[in-house]
């Protein structure tokens, strides 16, 4: 439990820093403050990039769009996946079966292909959301569907049926709350997936455009000068890894929290 709180705290801090970092940046992230590729300490704490801009300020300012878009994408994918999973896990009707088939078809299409096609056709953030929903919600749907099927016959659901609760109430008041840990864990994985997609698209040039500050874009821009100022590449790479790592750790603990601790 305490480790869960620690992981949640780290995730909260990293996300808050990423979203609000631009406001605490010591300098204007797009202003030229020194010679190109100054080493850390010479100009600013983390040196400068190829155009002489402050790396620290750009790292602080460069996460908000990336993280917010990924959060939005994860939220959309989880909501759609959970709704579909509850529906298909609960009923065996025609709608449920066609929904499952649609999800399976989506799963068969490579996610990166969807992402690239979407990125060509529309702005980067929309592409991230669409690709995460197309690639992620079928996975969520599958997991939630199986869990719902198991819960359908659980004692507490039958007790609720015996006192007169009907389908929609059973799903939202009994089944869904009992799956909180699972859904939280799954949402965490979708967030990690969205962050990876968003940074991959930026790295390929489909996301944020120069002179914007963006972690993935910074890695690409500063790679040629990494011999002079390695911090220009390492700093954005590390914060990206920290956000994804903290999200994954929180998700893993959330998944274990509702575990009843059965010994198989």
């Amino acid at each position: 439990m305490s480790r869960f709180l620690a992981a949640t705290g780290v995730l909260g801090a990293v996300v808050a820093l990423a979203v609000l970092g631009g406001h605490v940046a010591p300098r204007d992230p797009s202003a030229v403050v020194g010679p190109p590729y100054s080493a850390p300490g010479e100009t600013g704490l983390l040196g400068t990039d190829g155009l002489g801009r402050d790396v620290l300020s750009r790292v602080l300012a460069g996460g908000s769009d990336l993280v917010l878009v990924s959060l939005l994408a994860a939220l959309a994918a989880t909501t759609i996946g959970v709704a579909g999973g509850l529906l298909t896990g609960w009923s065996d009707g025609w709608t449920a079966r066609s929904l499952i088939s649609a999800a399976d078809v989506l799963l068969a299409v490579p996610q990166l292909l969807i992402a690239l096609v979407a990125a060509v056709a529309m702005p980067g953030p929309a592409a991230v959301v669409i690709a995460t929903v197309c690639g992620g919600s079928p996975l969520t749907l599958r997991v939630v569907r199986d869990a719902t099927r198991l819960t359908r016959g659980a004692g507490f659901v039958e007790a609720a049926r015996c006192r007169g609760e009907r389908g929609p109430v059973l799903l939202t008041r009994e089944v869904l709350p009992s799956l909180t840990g699972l859904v939280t864990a799954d949402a965490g994985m979708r967030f990690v997936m969205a962050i990876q997609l968003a940074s991959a698209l930026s790295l390929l040039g489909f996301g944020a455009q120069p002179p914007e500050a963006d972690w993935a874009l910074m890695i690409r821009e500063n790679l040629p000068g990494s011999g002079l100022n390695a911090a220009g590449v390492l700093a954005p790479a590390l914060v990206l890894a920290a956000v994804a790592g903290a999200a994954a750790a929180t998700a893993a603990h959330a998944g274990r929290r509702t575990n009843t601790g059965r010994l198989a």
Partner: protein
Amino acid sequence: MNDAPGLTVDGIAVHDTAGNVVLPATSLRVDRGEIVAITGPSGCGKSTLLRAILDALPDGLTRAEGAVSWRSETVHSGRPARRWRRHTVGFLGQDPAGALNPAHPVHRLVAEGPGAPGPFAIRSALERLGLDADELWRRRPGQLSGGQAQRVAFARAMAGDPELLILDEPTSALDTGTLGLVVDLLAARRARCATIVVSHDRAFTGRVADRVLRLGGHDRSPGSPGSGSRGGTVSGDAVLSASRLVVGHPGRGPVLEGTSLDLCRGELAVVLGESGGGKTTLLRALAGLHPAASGELRLDGGHLPARLGERTRRQLRAVQLIAQNPADALNPAYRAGTSVARTARVARGLSRSAARAHASELLTAVGLPGADRHFPRELSGGQRQRVAIARALAAGPDVLLADEITSALDEEAVLGVLGLLDDLCGNGLAVLLVTHDRDVAARADRTLRLRGGRLDAGPGNTTDRSEDTVAAHDTIAP
């Protein structure tokens, strides 16, 4: 032979993450050839002790101090303990149905046990527990009754002849005949292994154990729950009646074939019968959870639909079921008080605050004062069972269908629950109780026996004396 001690547990204590003591320092020693029973009130930490010994505590609990050694060698936690569990220890948990992988057939489940038993050992283990190995061989856990699942899990624990056998409530779902088989089996294996048994059943521990350890609470010997039957508060009119019920499982023949039953207001009726004989199915059919294929149900003389979804709100409220398995009886997301209050709100239309107050009263009545704020994961199996009883009562039912509700409880709690049921019966509640416990059955107004898919009404107000002769080999309807 080897004179080294078997299992030595030296002052192990269990704390939760907040540092609260869940189990105070406990020591015990079990030698080869010895059977040690552990008893105590529910919630005193019996299961926690077993899990601490096995180094398999649930999340949030840690073994704060103490050591476990096997044959004078310390079993370190982590990987050595896992290896020790896999090769040396046969373990039967309190929730056998949950411990069986639903995807595997019975023979594979038993083969998972310590010592990797072969087909011959598997077959003999199943048969020595009174199970028909041929019939069950390919069944999956979903197709087993509560008592059969418990015996399959038991067979898994002992088929490979482990040197240490740890059993948590091994008899909670077993009838008297099968109980005798378990006693014989433990006696026959005694010389080859060390055994720890957790049980509430004093008669059982008295028969098998060399020593009885009492955990927590003060030692007191409550009178047998069987002392004295209830006075005649039964009134003649049937509140729930079933005629010629036929209930089947898909893929198998009918479990109930023309079962008829009349349950009177204020009556406590007990259903006895073989495990796997359809007792649970009967209750579920009456509750509407497992609709009968044919037959007629009547509530207060009016037609009662077989399907739950077709019953009116008043009919739903009137018939409440308490299920056998306390492990998944409560929603893990809600505190006990919330679960109970929700039923009072939905079924009886009480206001939020009135429902809360009523839930508190009911939890106190079942012997769990102050449990409102606890989540199910903080409650033991017996405590969850009592919350489930309170939840069913919160609906204000006319008929209570209770499936083995006393099996997870210690004697004191059984007395409390039976006393509560007595009071409620005095106010006109009809109770249909499935049980294996003869002492509980002795308190009933009427004993019914489910045999071959039919209910034979036993003579009113007496225990069925022929119970001892009911062999475990009684044929069960296909």
